[in-house]
């Protein structure tokens, strides 16, 4: 099944019955799938007039207590940032998919990872974060999307699926989880559903009093700390005996894994550390790896973004080399393994 379709079907199975979006390449297969599939299960698909409108429809549906989703690609996500900041401030759950493409500006439609900063630093205005999940396979697109709705509801926070055009277009076999009974999802007493049998309430992010606003900000921060403690996900591949570890996520990690295998064939002890949650960044697990490994090789499909988090995590204790291909260029495993070999040679590793 195609990556975009996997995400859509997984969302539906997780209980998502509302999708609001606006077409942009390379993710159009996702809304197309939703427009066909949602009505079959009593859901609603709306093609909005813009990304801004669609994210605000998401806010409305989330306020009303529904599991809701939108998707887009880089320039469209920039437009959605207004609403994503509101979701953060209003403490509303929602799932947002970004099939990244080359940028900045209109850029191109080739796979890229250059929205890492935007995704992991909140992206919009104000002190807030979104949970960022970075799948690297068809099965993970499915599992992480499915999981994203639970995380969003549990923490009342927006969750971002950060994939790229390649993940969205690629086909892989996948095993889907069970279809959730929407009626049996956890109740949301905070939602606005009409003041029937209870006092009326409102959902707002406007807090004029600076003291109260600060308290709201600290409350969000405490929530983010909880998330950082409980929700870190990563994959460690052949790092136990490694002399050098590649750090990469998503599509780049797939290429890196192949490069690791090539390097191992050449007798070079190379491993892969793959963050699955980009925020919270798996800082402690990476530090654990750094107790045994001195050399790190960060590979991204951008000009160097996650490398800053790696450097922060390793606090200058390790040697961090960066290799990136921005603009939608996807290198092959041979290229990466060649550069890894050169590192071994130059630094006299192993």
């Amino acid at each position, binding site marked *: 099944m195609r990556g975009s379709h996997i995400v859509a079907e997984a969302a539906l199975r997780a209980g998502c019955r*509302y999708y609001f979006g606006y077409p942009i390449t390379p993710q159009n297969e996702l809304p197309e799938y939703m427009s066909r599939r949602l009505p079959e299960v009593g859901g609603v698909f709306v093609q909005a*007039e813009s990304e801004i409108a669609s994210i605000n429809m998401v806010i409305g549906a989330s306020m*009303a207590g529904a599991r809701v989703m939108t998707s887009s690609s880089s320039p469209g996500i920039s437009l959605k940032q207004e609403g994503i900041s509101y979701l953060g401030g*209003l403490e509303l759950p929602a799932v947002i998919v970004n099939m990244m493409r080359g940028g900045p500006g209109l850029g191109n439609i080739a796979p890229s990872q250059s929205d890492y900063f935007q995704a992991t630093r909140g992206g919009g205005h104000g002190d807030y974060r979104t949970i960022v999940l970075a799948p690297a396979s068809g099965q993970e697109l499915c599992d992480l999307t499915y999981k994203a709705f639970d995380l969003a509801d549990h923490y009342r926070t927006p969750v971002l699926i950060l994939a790229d055009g390649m993940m969205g277009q690629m086909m892989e076999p996948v095993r889907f989880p069970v279809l959730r009974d929407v009626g049996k999802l956890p109740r949301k007493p905070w939602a606005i559903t009409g003041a029937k049998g209870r006092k009326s309430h409102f959902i707002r992010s406007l807090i004029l009093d600076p003291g109260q606003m600060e308290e709201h900000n600290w409350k969000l921060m405490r929530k983010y700390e909880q998330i950082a403690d409980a929700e870190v996900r990563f994959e460690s591949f052949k790092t136990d005996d490694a002399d050098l570890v590649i750090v990469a996520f998503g599509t780049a990690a797939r290429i890196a894994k192949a490069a690791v295998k090539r390097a191992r064939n050449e007798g070079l002890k190379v491993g892969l550390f793959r963050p699955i949650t980009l925020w919270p960044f798996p800082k402690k697990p990476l530090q654990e790896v750094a107790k045994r490994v001195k050399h790190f090789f960060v590979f991204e499909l951008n000009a160097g973004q996650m490398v800053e988090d790696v450097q922060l995590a390793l606090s200058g204790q390790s040697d961090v080399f960066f290799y990136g291909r921005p603009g939608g260029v996807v290198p092959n495993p041979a290229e990466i393994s060649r550069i890894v070999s050169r590192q071994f040679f130059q630094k006299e590793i192993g």
Partner: protein
Amino acid sequence: MKKVFGRPKTLKPVPYHYCPGCGHSLLHRIVAEVIEEMGVEEIAIGVPPAGCAVLAYNYFDVDMGEAAHGRGAALATGVKRVLPDHLVFTYQGDGDIAAIGTAETVHAANRGERITCIFVNNAVYGMTGGQMAPTTILGQTTTTSPGGRVGNRDGFPLNLSEMLAVTRGSAYIERTSVTSPAGIRATKKAVRKAFEIQLKGLGFTLVEVLSPCPTNLKMSPIEACRWVDTEMVNYFPLGVIKDVTAPEEGKNAH
């Protein structure tokens, strides 16, 4: 003696933050009265705007969810699609609905979204300090049109309601004012009709209310009302602009 006029129950007993003679104050009460008289308190969901009425959720005793600047119609769309049997209304000022939120509003109308927009037009930006609005009339002085609005430089007063009437999805659009007892009665009737048409599922509804902003017009409250009655109405004529339930005209728009 029998009490014949008092505060509606759907209006919380808290004093308004609005200036003396502000039309928002009157319109809040009118909307609250209609909600109470229709008995729809339990299914009503309001969407307050950015602008002076941003604190509307402090006053209406119904569920409310705040929208970003101009996005009321989009947010209300989301709510209504999840809760199709509820009464969903936005409350928006002229800058909110007719400038930053024009796209959201036009397309909600065009989709025939079953929501009601209460559009407060006072020809000026209130909360930000009296700047030019899309509905500022020609020659009107504001803090960003210091010599008076000039059409071919600053743009012309925007007749959003007439624009929306052209969309096939809109069902009922009326323009009223709150500057006199008769205007208030007409406004109340229009809001009620819009709500009823929404609940019947006939399409998008909107009531534009011309409203005095004495502070930013730099007039006494009564002068501000007279200004609305004599100057503003030249650009924004009162009356029903579209009504698909009317026997003759209006229907042909479909």
